């Protein structure tokens, strides 16, 4: 493509501002890339203004040069800097353009002159400005030479820094502000000069004519200033990532790309965590309503993030969750003082005096709590001790740390509070020190103990999606996950579900015959079993049969070499009737009566205990037996409160502090503890979690000589929402292997349940009728919570499809409900489905686990039949 390809632009052609950072301008291939991108924007019929940073590393080199007192060393440094530019020109096979030669001469002169003439700060600003002046001159030469005539513009002639009150000389010169309003005169002046322009980020000029810098995030801010001045069609920030994400991808690999944000939301997200954009660069664009687009230089085909005015109503959604660590809180308690005039001013003066700046504030009648960010002053001086001493004279002080601020950001936060109940319940388990909700309704911030944050953020992200608070199902707002875009290693992609492809016709036929029906797909069961058998670190796998006790499934898993974990004599009997005698059995009851244990010792099952009571009161039942001790490691995990099985709020497991007592009781009755077991919950997708459980169990086992195996339970998550990452079995194995290498003398057991069978089962039902109520549309089907109680019991999300009309466009928004006389009989809310007709076969996916086994005769409706597909 060449510039001649497009017709000349009219004077009124729109502008596009494109900003490229230091790494993007440091090599020839990157400049070739820029050239292509600029040409394509020009071809759209726009004038293009390119804003560039200095070559990567040059700004730092210039700063070091400025700090150098020795003149000869400064001159040497300036030569090195010049050389970097010569090298790049060499690569481009270009002669040194005059514009650059002028800059290099000036640089050498300034280096020699030193700060004496201009003054330290002004000299330093002018010196540093040369990084951008040189890179832009070089860029102009390259672009023009490659057939894209490009005008070099001195940004200082366009951006005038404004003097602000409370600015000192340093901020005036090194972090200046520009008031950028649309400037038609500049627009006209430039339009006369050409079609493609290049200028500098980071620099401006103040009223006395001196060169000033824009400070941190300066180049992005320059691009915004130019966008505003030229009232551009858009400002494009080209960087190394496709935009802003719903969470820090390092913490949450499943974080989704945010495709559309309004200015305020984006600014909130940038301020509370996202590093891709400096929050200050958005405000210049807000008033002229110039949109900003963030794009990945290496992957220009990705959509990126568009930040613009709030255009039309989307369903309110949390957009991002972030965490800032290392926060210290100062809580000040006083009765009746806060209302006194000037009291708070005096208190805050103390913070100023000790050099500590306050971020969050919350107040009550008798308490004001503020947060401090982790500065060097805070960590390594006596600032906090001195502050506390001074404050203690007027109020009671408490210093709370280390804390982390977790922020949910998104427009209309208050209207989403009702969807956050599950999320808030999670906070209910923690120490929340401060909650702040800004009046601009954009964020909700919780300050909690720092130690919980690393585990909490990925879980909250998941819960926000599951609760429908983070509406990842809205593909206009949310793009692909970071993992799928940039993740290393193999992305575990969800294949097409069996019911969507090979078995669809058979299912339609089954649904036409009779409903409700559960249908189980045995190849899927076997496939899941084989996935888990790749866990080389695991010595024995037990199927937790409570998920589904269908004899065909039990037999298939026995054939795959699984043992079976049962929680009642009934389950044990069902398993023993279906599987060969060689299959190992575990009996892991909870609050079971005495006779259950006595009976279980008559079978071949390995018996678990999880409380002191049985040994204290029924010691004779256990005399001389080997048992497994189920412990509670203190903290539960899982997708819903009711499936969390660890922590004091859970009835399962022996607390760690009772282990010594348990062991003494065991000794008294000659009971040998052969295994240790812990199980923290269900639906866990984070592989590190099992490593932690395993490691903790192993360190407990070291105190008990008799232990031969560790059972880390199950709870392997099965993703239900579109785009959720599947559990990475290979990564899990890696985690487990590491622990095993440290504790090779313990065998490792696991007890997966839902993982094996959830995807293998579907519930077929048929449409009975529809009802409209206000703007709500109800779609009635012939079964509900009597067959599948998970949505009502756990708020579980099951995919629902109209199997009859699988290929028709999903235009209706339905509440899918069953026929049970309970207002909770809702199988799925706000589902986009094709317009349905009576008799259509509707499929509820992932119903293979905890479906039929939890069904009830409530309302005395017919129970769902079970069908096996082999």
């Amino acid at each position, binding site marked *: 493509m060449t510039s001649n390809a497009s017709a000349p632009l009219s004077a009124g052609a729109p502008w596009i501002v494109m900003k490229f950072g230091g790494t993007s301008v440091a090599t020839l291939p990157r400049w070739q890339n820029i050239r292509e991108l600029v040409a394509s924007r020009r071809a759209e019929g726009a004038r293009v203004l390119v804003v560039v940073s200095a070559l990567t590393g040059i700004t730092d080199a210039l700063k070091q040069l400025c700090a150098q007192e020795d003149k000869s060393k400064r001159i040497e440094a300036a030569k090195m800097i010049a050389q970097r530019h010569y090298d790049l020109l060499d690569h481009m096979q270009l002669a040194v353009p005059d514009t650059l030669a002028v800059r290099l001469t000036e640089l050498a002169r300034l280096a020699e002159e030193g700060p004496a003439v201009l003054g330290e700060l002004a000299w330093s600003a002018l010196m540093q400005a040369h990084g951008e002046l040189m890179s832009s001159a070089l860029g102009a030469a390259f672009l023009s030479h490659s057939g894209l005539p490009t005008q070099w513009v001195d940004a200082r002639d366009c951006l005038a820094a404004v003097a602000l009150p409370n600015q000192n000389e340093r901020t005036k010169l090194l972090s200046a502000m520009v008031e950028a309003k649309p400037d038609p005169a500049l627009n006209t002046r430039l339009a006369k000069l050409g079609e493609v322009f290049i200028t500098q980020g980071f620099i401006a000029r103040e009223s006395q004519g001196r060169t000033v810098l824009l400070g941190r995030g300066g180049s992005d801010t320059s691009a915004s200033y130019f966008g505003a001045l030229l009232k551009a069609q858009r400002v494009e920030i080209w960087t190394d990532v496709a935009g802003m994400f719903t969470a820090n991808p390092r913490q949450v690999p499943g974080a989704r790309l945010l495709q559309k944000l309004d200015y305020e939301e984006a600014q909130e997200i940038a301020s509370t965590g996202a590093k891709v954009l400096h929050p200050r660069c958005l405000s210049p664009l807000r008033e002229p309503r110039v949109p900003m687009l963030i794009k990945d230089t290496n992957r220009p085909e990705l959509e990126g993030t568009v930040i613009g005015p709030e255009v039309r109503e989307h369903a309110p959604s949390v957009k991002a969750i972030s965490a800032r660590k290392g926060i*210290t809180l100062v809580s000040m308690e006083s009765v009746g003082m806060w209302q006194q005039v000037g009291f708070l001013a005096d208190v805050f003066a103390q913070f100023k005096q000790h050099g500590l700046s306050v971020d969050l504030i919350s107040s009550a009648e008798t308490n004001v709590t503020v947060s401090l960010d982790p500065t060097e002053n805070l960590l390594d001086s006596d600032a906090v001790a001195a502050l506390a001493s001074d404050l203690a004279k007027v109020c009671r002080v408490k*210093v709370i740390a280390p804390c982390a601020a977790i922020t949910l950001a998104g427009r209309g936060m208050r209207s989403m509070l009702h969807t956050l109940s599950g999320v808030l319940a999670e906070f209910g388990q923690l120490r929340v020190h401060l909650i702040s909700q800004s009046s601009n309704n954009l964020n909700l911030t919780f300050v909690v103990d720092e*130690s919980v944050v690393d585990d909490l953020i990925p879980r909250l992200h998941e819960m926000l999606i599951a609760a429908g608070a983070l509406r990842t199902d809205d593909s206009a707002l949310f793009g692909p996950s970071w993992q799928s875009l940039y993740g290393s290693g193999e992305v575990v992609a969800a294949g097409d579900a069996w019911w969507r492809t090979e078995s669809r016709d058979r299912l339609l036929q089954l649904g036409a015959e009779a409903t409700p029906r559960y249908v189980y797909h045995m190849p899927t069961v076997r496939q899941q079993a084989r996935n888990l058998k790749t866990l080389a670190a695991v010595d024995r796998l037990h199927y937790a049969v409570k998920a589904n006790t269908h004899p065909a499934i039990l037999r298939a898993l026995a054939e795959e070499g699984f043992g079976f974990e049962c929680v009642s004599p009934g389950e044990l009997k069902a398993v023993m009737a279906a599987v060969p005698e060689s299959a190992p059995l575990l009996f892991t009851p909870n609050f079971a009566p005495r006779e259950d244990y006595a009976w279980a010792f008559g079978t071949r099952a390995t018996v678990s205990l999880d409380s002191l009571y049985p040994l204290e009161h029924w010691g004779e039942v256990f005399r001389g037996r080997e048992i497994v001790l189920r412990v509670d490691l203190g903290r539960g995990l899982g997708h819903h409160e009711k499936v969390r099985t660890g922590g004091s709020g859970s009835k399962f497991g022996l607390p760690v502090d009772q282990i010594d007592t348990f062991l003494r009781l065991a000794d008294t009755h000659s009971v040998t503890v052969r295994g240790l077991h812990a199980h923290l919950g269900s639906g866990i997708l984070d592989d590190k979690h099992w490593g932690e459980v395993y490691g903790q169990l192993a360190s407990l086992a070291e105190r008990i000589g008799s232990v031969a195996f560790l059972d880390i339970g199950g709870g392997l998550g099965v993703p239900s929402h579109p785009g959720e990452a599947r559990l990475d079995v290979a990564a899990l194995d890696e985690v487990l292997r590491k622990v095993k290498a440290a504790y090779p003398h313990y065998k490792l057991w696991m007890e997966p349940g839902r993982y094996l069978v959830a995807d293998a089962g579907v519930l077929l039902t048929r449409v009975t009728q529809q009802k409209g109520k206000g703007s709500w549309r109800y779609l009635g089907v012939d079964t509900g919570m009597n067959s599948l109680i998970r949505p009502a019991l756990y708020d579980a999300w099951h995919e629902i499809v109209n199997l009859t009309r699988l290929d028709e466009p999903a235009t209706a928004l339905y509440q899918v409900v069953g026929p049970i006389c309970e207002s909770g009989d809702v199988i799925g809310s706000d589902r986009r489905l094709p317009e349905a007709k009576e008799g259509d076969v509707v499929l509820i996916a992932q119903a293979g686990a905890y479906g039929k086994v939890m069904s009830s005769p409530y309302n005395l409706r017919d129970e769902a039949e079970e069908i096996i597909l082999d």
Partner: protein
Amino acid sequence: MTHPIQPRLTQVFRFVRCTYAHGVAELVYAFDHGEELIERVRFPAAPAVTAERKHAFEAALKLLHLIAGISYYKAGVPPKIELSNGPLDDATADLLEALYLHGLAEFAYRNGLDLRGRIAFPRSGEPSGMVKAATLHLPERTLVPIGGGKDSLVAVEAIKHIGGQATAVWVGNSPLIATCAERTGLPTLNIQRELAPGLFELNRLGAWNGHIPVTAVNSAVLAVAAILYGYDSIAFANERSASAATLEYDGQQVNHQWSKGYAFERLLGDWLHTHVAADLHYCSLLRPYSELAITRAFAKLTPYFDVFSSCNRNFKILGPKPADRWCGECPKCHFVFLALAPFLPKPRLLAIFGRNVLDDEAQTAGFDALLEYHDHKPFECVGEGAEARAAMYALSQRPEWQEDAIVARFRSEILPQLDVAELALEPWLKPAGDHRVPERLQPALAAIG
């Protein structure tokens, strides 16, 4: 395969043999006529043993065999001990009987056993003072065992401070210690110890289990290493309070860290002088110092803050978070937190631990035990109650600490029962008492205090 043994019913513990070849020492033990239990200690890149040091090496190896046997002996605690290499002179038998009795005192207490009169090593009757070891002119350099905690790091920095030649050494497989050792910048030496697999089997069969004086075993390993590689000193980092008993039980002193105490240091140091080499010095560099003096010294060693841990939970898998190194619930976490608190800015200390242990009400009982309030001293290598009280008192006077749950409770409930005159921090910061630091290393002592 012999009939499965019942460890607690065994009659004889036998020291079968010990051999050394190509950097590997094999220490062999057995109960009754049961299977041999073979422990291996691996010395990496071991040089050949010179003729000049051969005698010393064999003596050190013999002692290692005798001392390391304690891990196995305790599985059955049989009434009789047999030595296949013949009886011991009085000095050696005295050392071992003291070690087995006092080093296993906590083990005995926990298991309800009484070892007094039960431990008797066969004696030749050769009295103490008859043996005399040669001077070997060992190189002037020091083995400094690293434990991953603050104490050994203070010792390392003290030796570095005086320009002493030293090697950071550790026994076993701990990523935590390896990271700390690496952070010292010293040459490192990692000696591997493989327990006999049969010991795990014995445990499964119901062996007695509990605390063993692991510092004694490590000391014996390092004595072998000093002769093998050529070091004139082994400088442990055991402080003054390690000599204090944890509790008294049935007329017997029980000290969880007996092998870190001065009595053992003296016994072993003298024995090495007389039986191995007159110029091999075994000492603790921190002996004159209290825990508080050491934590004060450590508070200046910022580069170690994100790698060290004194936590009692055995972290075999390292992670980047504080919670991967500190459980926050064991007596060691309690004490180190409390003892560092007077000497570090609060946010810095909390960043090290990743939590505020003193604002966690669940830790009340643990701190009570530490302060010797309502409870006896816990079985851990932690400072004396008086030191803990002095540190707590200092915090209770500081506004940034005094509202934290455990400190507030101390102020309202415990402090009124104490004599403030006895709670000063300063006296703890002065060195006091005997030590066995050889002359060459004595300037390092000043670098600590």
